[in-house]
């Protein structure tokens, strides 16, 4: 990653370098956005909605999204389901084990702001933005697969705007 991050800086100085970097930006961001491998991570009922989205009727695969069971091979973590205070360190651990660039989608009311457990609950974390940085929020309880696909498309738009230099 270090080389790729430095490459545009040197390239820009060559004649025609700007064109190369913009093309590189396009190629990299396009390929990244259309191969978002997401981590298998579901803690509650939203996970069933996530499975339905991955199954044949809605088919995540047409976005190039394949589930991986290992954080080392995923770009995206879809936090599907309630995150309790006891689960929070585990979510953080999985997030920390993912390689950059990495993205987080907060799916469903529970992960956005505690959802139905906002009141009178001692156990539920009120929003996972306390634990990990979130890119896209999907409201709903549970969100329909269309909503989840919409959220993933939003994330893809976000990724396509990125430049190579933005990669941390």
């Amino acid at each position: 990653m270090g080389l790729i991050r430095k490459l545009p800086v040197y390239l820009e100085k060559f004649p025609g370098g700007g064109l190369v970097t913009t093309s590189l930006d396009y190629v990299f961001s396009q390929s990244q956005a259309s191969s978002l491998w997401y981590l298998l991570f579901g803690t509650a009922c939203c996970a069933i909605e996530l499975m339905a989205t991955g199954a044949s009727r809605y088919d995540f695969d047409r976005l190039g999204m394949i589930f991986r069971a290992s954080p080392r091979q995923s770009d995206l973590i879809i936090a599907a389901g309630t995150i309790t205070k006891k689960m929070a360190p585990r979510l953080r651990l999985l997030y920390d084990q993912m390689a950059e660039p990495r993205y987080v989608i907060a799916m469903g009311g529970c992960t956005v702001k505690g959802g139905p457990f906002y009141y009178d609950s001692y156990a539920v974390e009120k929003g996972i933005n306390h634990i990990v940085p979130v890119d896209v929020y999907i409201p709903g309880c549970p969100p329909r697969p269309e909503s989840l696909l919409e959220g993933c498309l939003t994330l893809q738009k976000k990724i396509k705007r990125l430049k190579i230099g933005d990669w941390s």
Partner: protein
Amino acid sequence: MNRDNLINYLLEKHPGKIELLDTGKVEPFFALDKEYLLEFCRSIKTDETLTIDFLCNIAAVDTGEKLEVVYSVASAKNRIRFDFKVVMPYEEAEVESVQTVWAGANWHEREIWELFGINVRNHDNLTRFLLPDDWNQGNPMRKNWDAPDFIRMPEL
């Protein structure tokens, strides 16, 4: 053994020690003293007529004035079910462990110890069960419990 026989049998067997509560439910419901709890459990377990071999559940209740611990027991062999409870004030929140009678009580007792702060005497493993290991905010199932990030449902 039908309901009335069971009630009569238990009341005769433990005279003055247990009282029948009128709940309107099918299963009889008894109240007894904290000190008599372990003895009562042992006797219903070893009694040939009852043979209460299964502890369904232990639940604690915070009524706002007192704490209660409710035991639901059953016998698979004789097809009997009944409940009994012990009532205690907040200052003496302590019960005797019944895991020597029914081993399954272990986890239930850990739960009531953790969520209600009811001390369980002679329990062999009182450790955190449901809450995070580093929990330090008291007993969340008590009525008067509060925490910085705990938001009560607004009165409508």
